[in-house]
């Protein structure tokens, strides 16, 4: 697998073409807007927490395939997760992006496809965009 193919795994390209969780965020009590000023990529994420579980999640945004696919994969992972687990997943994802060559934990599932991003420092922020927004929403929702 070439470097480029390890960056743009098929699952990433698929998610970027058919993003999950994309939708109207205006109805959410908690939303967060995250911008990557160096490239203009942006995302607005909304989520609901009930009884310690992320019950609903949606996002709007525009950006490169990495940032869009990453938000899409994340949506599937976080929806239905309890808050602790969601936070742990966000940490795992961040750790993976900072650790080129280290095998990611299995619970990251499809998100492990972003492993190749770690070798591209300038793209780490793209991959993190949605996750940072989710982190901010969780903080707002449950403190």
């Amino acid at each position, binding site marked *: 697998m*070439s*470097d*480029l193919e390890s*960056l*743009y795994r098929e699952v990433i*390209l698929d998610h970027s*073409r058919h993003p999950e969780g994309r939708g109207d965020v205006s109805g959410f009590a908690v939303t967060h807007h995250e911008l990557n000023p*160096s*490239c*203009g*990529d942006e995302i607005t994420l909304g989520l609901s927490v009930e009884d310690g579980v992320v019950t609903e999640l949606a996002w709007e945004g*525009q*950006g*490169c*395939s*990495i940032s*869009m696919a990453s938000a899409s994969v994340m949506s599937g992972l976080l929806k239905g997760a309890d808050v602790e687990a969601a936070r742990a997943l966000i940490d795992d994802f961040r750790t993976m992006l900072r650790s080129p060559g280290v095998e990611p934990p299995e619970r990251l599932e499809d998100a492990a496809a972003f492993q190749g991003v770690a070798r*591209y420092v300038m*793209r780490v922020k*793209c991959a993190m965009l949605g996750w940072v927004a989710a982190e901010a929403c969780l903080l707002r929702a449950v403190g």
Partner: protein
Amino acid sequence: MNTLQARVRDDFPFLAAHPHRAYLDSAATSQRPRQVIDAEAAFVAADYAAVHRGSSMATGAATQAFEDARARVASFVGGAPDEIVWAENATDAINMVALGMSDAALGLGCDDARARFGLGPGDEIVVTEAEHHANLIPWQRLAARTGATLRWAAVDDDGLWGIDDLAAVVTDRTRVIAFAHVSNVTGLVAPVADVVALARRVGALTVLDACQSVPHHPVDFSVLGVDFAAFSAHKMLGPTGIGALWGRKDLLDLLPPARTGGSTITTVTMESAQFLPAPYRFEAGTQPVSQAVGFAAASDFLREIGMPAVAAHEHEITGLLVDAVAAVEGVRLIGAALGAERGPLVSFVVEGVHAHDVGQFLDDRGVTVRTGHHCAQPLHRRLGVAATTRASAYVYTDAEEVARFAAALTEVRPFFGADR
């Protein structure tokens, strides 16, 4: 042509270190030839000392090298030595003018300075919608400080503007017109003579952002007739950390220095300071001394090739770049109407593929390009895109590099499945 560029390429250590890479990002920053690196290193190793301070022989030698560098850079742009002010970069040079005008409005200069530069409510500053943030935000801030109004020439759907677009917003209240000589996104070459004529008619000052012109074709500010102009060494084979403000001497002598400190003054008491004439009034603190030596070496390097030869070579390469982009289906060339009559760069949008992904793909194919808004968000908003991809050339760029770019570009949409 090819002999020029083959001879030239050998002088660049960076190109030798990356033989399989096409560096097509010179509009962002250029590489330095060994002549520049060596000139600076030799100066540092043998002649470095404090400049314009004290009376030792070491200081004398360093001061001479420093002032000699100023004279060489000045003559490169048709200026006199005392019309060149060193700055940190071109952005800093533009800010010197805008911040100086702010201080003039506040009465920190003499009465003449207030009359010439002091804006107030009702006065207008004019820019274009295509400006680099460096030639936009300082004017927004000047307007905010003084109560003046910022107006702008609108660009068309393709990011281009003409003298009529500018004339439409220039009035008797226009005090400054600031515009780029060559756009770093569309490559548009501004109709400088027309703008200067327009400005003179209404008594406005002209500030030229010459970042993308001075490196690429012969430029003589005194012939162009503008009042101030800014450019950066790092875009013309010189070091980072230094740029220059050129200005008409009478205006420079009148403009209050916003950044103040040592070496800018005649008499200082605890209450106030008197400033030297230009350029020294603006050069506060220890200057980028060895960088000035490198900057001058870069201008010598270009002078030796000859700027007409540089322009001719780049014109040929620009034609190849335009053809490369035009050849690919689903790729939109920004400012297509300009053809090859543009600065040596092409910005484009690949349908269905975000610019970052385009850039990443080309990078993987050994082609360095620039992606993003290129510090021109309003222009990109007007173009209806968040980001474009830009390939840009310089004196060392060769046809083979453009061919590599062209070939890689054809693969982008298929790779991302955007052609389906």
